[in-house]
């Protein structure tokens, strides 16, 4: 975390209670491995738990509040190496779980946009912190310069290994470069952050296609380990007739062309099939290519689209229409060119896994809509490179060991979408890092890091109750004609510094844990009196979840059953009112962070 060597000072001594105490030199800080502490961090910092990379979100938002943008940026970099990029195009799994977004608490903090603000406002001469390990003399080849590959390469070089990236395309970045349109992600931002990775001595070989230009076997022999991170580049096919007609594109290829500066024919009337971010990118690019009417055809309803509301709004704002509850039966064409689509109506039915809905076609409900071009963006799968056949696979995906990234071939690792299947950028980066740690263990022969919960008592939160009523700051965007006039114009302009400061105030700082010490509590309910919601409870019992977090709090209004007045940290919005009023000072505030400590030999 902060700086690794600091922890080297405090050798970890194990105690009865799965807790380890820091030496006096540091203020009362505890490193715990007690499941209840992990449970607490998991359950009561929902955003961080939802982030595949476990970014320390409260941490960096706090820094933004304190106008320490550089620090905020670094906290991000610890978890994902492309904060500026993700600040723009992350799929924001965190915001879905932000406590501020809970019923009656308003809208989630716009975590993602703040991430971008950190990148935007850090000083230009910003100093990057890397806790580097001394060189190990080991060499690792990484195949693919996409998010996963970059993530792996970076972590490997931090751990002291020599990383060499082999990239088939001309430019690094993978989907970031060729999948996402530049009106959402300016290329200079992308390149800058890739630069930051390469500076650690990562070697990048672009235009080299493993399998044709160099064989996997030679890599395996030349390097101590090889990481495959080739992602998902093979578009899924509809499997419906007419898919090969002219002016029928796959989302991936369409975006590739667009991002290469080409202008594929779209015509006036564009039909996009698919409901993901790629589909949206295609539709929005089509608008910029001069399409008059763009329809996004989805099998379920808007509610179940895997994209966030802001994206939905932008899409609609660009006059694109969602056409829901339809399933493509076939694509119709004349003289080899597409002319329309025959759809089937669908209806929603319950399905046992999230989001618990299936779209089921309704019999003989066919109808036809005209189209000048059709873009099919219904996901991708790994490209079956030369490895296919040599290695155990799971469908098109490369099979990796349970809880790990090693493959059936020793020294060969696989990570990112080529192993997990199509996911999102943040997941890929996270997996890249995790994979690197696996590789490290493989190369060094032992784990060099463990996870612990760092507990530090704090005495004030300097949050103001009024902050809780600040409304979510909307993103500044271009208006319509600016968007179409020049297709590379970035649509989102980001927050200005004062907007960022305002938005950062909204974060509850869920990483602070509030606790009442029953041995000192006199049950005077002063805290309950000032509680902003049902976050402080008179309870007779509390249950425990398997993951170590507390489950149900059994409340009671019977004085003779009240065994404790407890703060439910999953309801608590950290307003600090209780802490202020407690006459017995029996409420404590503890900063809880899930961190990596490195283990000495």
């Amino acid at each position, binding site marked *: 975390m902060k700086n690794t060597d600091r922890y080297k000072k405090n050798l970890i001594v194990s105690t009865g209670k799965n807790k380890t105490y820091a030496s006096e030199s540091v203020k009362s800080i505890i490193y715990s491995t007690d499941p209840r502490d992990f449970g607490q961090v998991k359950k009561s910092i929902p955003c961080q738990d939802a982030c595949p990379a476990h970014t320390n979100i409260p941490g960096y938002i706090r820094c933004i509040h304190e106008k320490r943008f550089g620090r905020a940026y670094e906290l991000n970099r610890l978890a994902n190496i492309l904060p500026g990029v993700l600040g723009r195009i992350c799929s924001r799994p965190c915001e879905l779980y932000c406590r501020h977004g809970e019923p009656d608490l308003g809208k989630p903090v716009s975590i993602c946009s703040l991430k971008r603000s950190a990148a935007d406002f850090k000083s230009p001469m910003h100093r990057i912190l890397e806790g580097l390990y001394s060189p190990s003399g080991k060499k690792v080849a990484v195949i693919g310069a996409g998010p996963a590959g970059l993530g792996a390469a970076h972590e490997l070089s931090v751990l002291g290994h020599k990383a060499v990236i082999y990239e088939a395309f001309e430019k690094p970045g993978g989907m970031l470069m060729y999948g996402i349109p530049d009106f959402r992600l300016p290329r200079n931002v992308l390149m800058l952050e890739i630069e930051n990775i390469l500076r650690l001595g990562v070697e990048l070989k672009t235009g080299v296609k493993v399998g044709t230009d160099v064989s996997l076997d030679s890599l395996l022999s030349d390097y101590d380990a090889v990481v495959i991170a080739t992602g998902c580049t093979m578009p899924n096919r509809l499997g419906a007739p007419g898919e090969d007609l002219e002016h029928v594109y796959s989302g991936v290829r369409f975006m590739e062309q667009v991002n290469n500066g080409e202008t594929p024919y779209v015509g006036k009337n564009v039909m996009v099939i698919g409901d993901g971010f790629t589909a949206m990118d295609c539709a929005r690019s089509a608008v910029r290519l001069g399409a008059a009417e763009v329809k996004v055809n989805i099998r379920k309803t808007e509610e179940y689209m895997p994209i966030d509301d802001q994206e939905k709004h932008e899409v609609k704002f660009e006059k694109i229409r969602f056409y829901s509850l339809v399933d493509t039966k076939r694509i119709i064409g004349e003289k080899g060119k597409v002319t329309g689509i025959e759809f089937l109506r669908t209806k929603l039915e319950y399905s046992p896994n999230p989001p618990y809905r299936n779209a089921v076609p309704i019999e003989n409900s066919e109808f036809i809509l005209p189209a000048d071009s059709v873009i099919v963006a219904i996901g991708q799968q790994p490209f079956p490179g030369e490895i296919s056949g040599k290695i155990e696979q799971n469908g098109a995906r490369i099979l990796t060991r349970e809880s790990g990234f090693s493959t059936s071939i020793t020294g060969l690792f696989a990570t990112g979408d080529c192993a997990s299947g199509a996911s999102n950028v943040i997941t890929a980066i996270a997996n890249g890092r995790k994979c690197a740690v696996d590789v490290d263990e493989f190369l060094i022969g032992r784990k060099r890091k463990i996870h612990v919960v760092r507990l530090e008592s704090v005495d004030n939160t300097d949050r103001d109750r009024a902050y809780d009523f600040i409304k979510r700051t909307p993103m500044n965007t271009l208006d319509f004609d600016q968007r179409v006039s020049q297709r590379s114009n970035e649509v989102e302009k980001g927050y200005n510094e004062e907007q960022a400061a305002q938005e950062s105030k909204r974060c509850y700082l869920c990483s602070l844990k509030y*606790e009442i010490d029953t*041995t000192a509590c006199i049950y005077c309910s002063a805290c309950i009196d000032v509680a902003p919601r049902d976050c402080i409870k008179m309870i007779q*019992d509390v249950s425990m979840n398997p993951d170590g977090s507390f489950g149900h709090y059994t409340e009671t*209004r019977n*004085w*003779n059953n009240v065994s404790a007045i407890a703060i439910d940290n999953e309801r608590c919005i950290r307003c600090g009112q209780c802490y202020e009023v407690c006459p017995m000072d029996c409420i404590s505030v503890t900063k809880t962070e899930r961190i990596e400590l490195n283990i000495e030999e």
Partner: protein
Amino acid sequence: MITPGSQYLDEQINTVKENGFLRYRTGELPTWCPGCGYFGITDAILKACLELNLKNEEICAISGIGCAGRYPVFMNVYGFHTLHGRSIPVASGVKLAREDLTVFAVAGDGDALGIGGGHLPHIARKNIDITLFLFDNSIYGLTKGQSSATTLFGQATSSHPGGNPDTPLNPIKLALAYGASFVARGFAGDPEGLKHLAKEAITHKGFSFLHITTPCVTFDKFNFTWKNLKENHSYIDQSIHNVTDMESAMRIAEHERFKLGVFYKDSNRLSYHENLRNIASKKA
């Protein structure tokens, strides 16, 4: 303030349950203002009863009018909420009728030192074996903050906005002067210490006077606040003070307003009942 590393919630709950003082509570949630010191006192008394292992049914708690008057509602014993200032005589009556019971008289400062002040000397000199818990928040809470007998001189109250012209009583000195055979002071903010004093008071044979200082969080925001009381209170150094030494007790009571602990204790003095019996036996 606890440091991270003290008990986890589930462990705390188990401790409380095993401990068992909850049995001295009724199901009624106290209606005192949130944050009231009376909660601390209640907590201490409950725990004292527990550690003395008293049977609930053998305790009587008699109170007067005022915030303290509500106390018996929340304690799972034979409670009696009587008239303003009249808790002492009623309690005395109970005790005289049933020596086998443990009797608490609960009174606020207005109750015991104001309107009922006239009763105090007499129960003290009779040395009837009850325990008076004097909940002293130095204000009239229920009538919205007028000066009481222990309100500081010059303190602004709703009856003396310009400052209280009356010098406050010194309850300890009074009790000593009235000849109470057990005189102690506890503090609502230290339930643990108060518990020990309560135990001693209850077990003492004869009239026990336990003065308990507590803030009124609603009507005294400046003087006897949690903060001030905590800062000023300290325990009598028992190594230099002998509890049978009346002069020393008086001296401390006189000069050190915020001393806590047992001031005076005369274990040899006979209780009213014993005197009655002796007189009776002499006649015989």
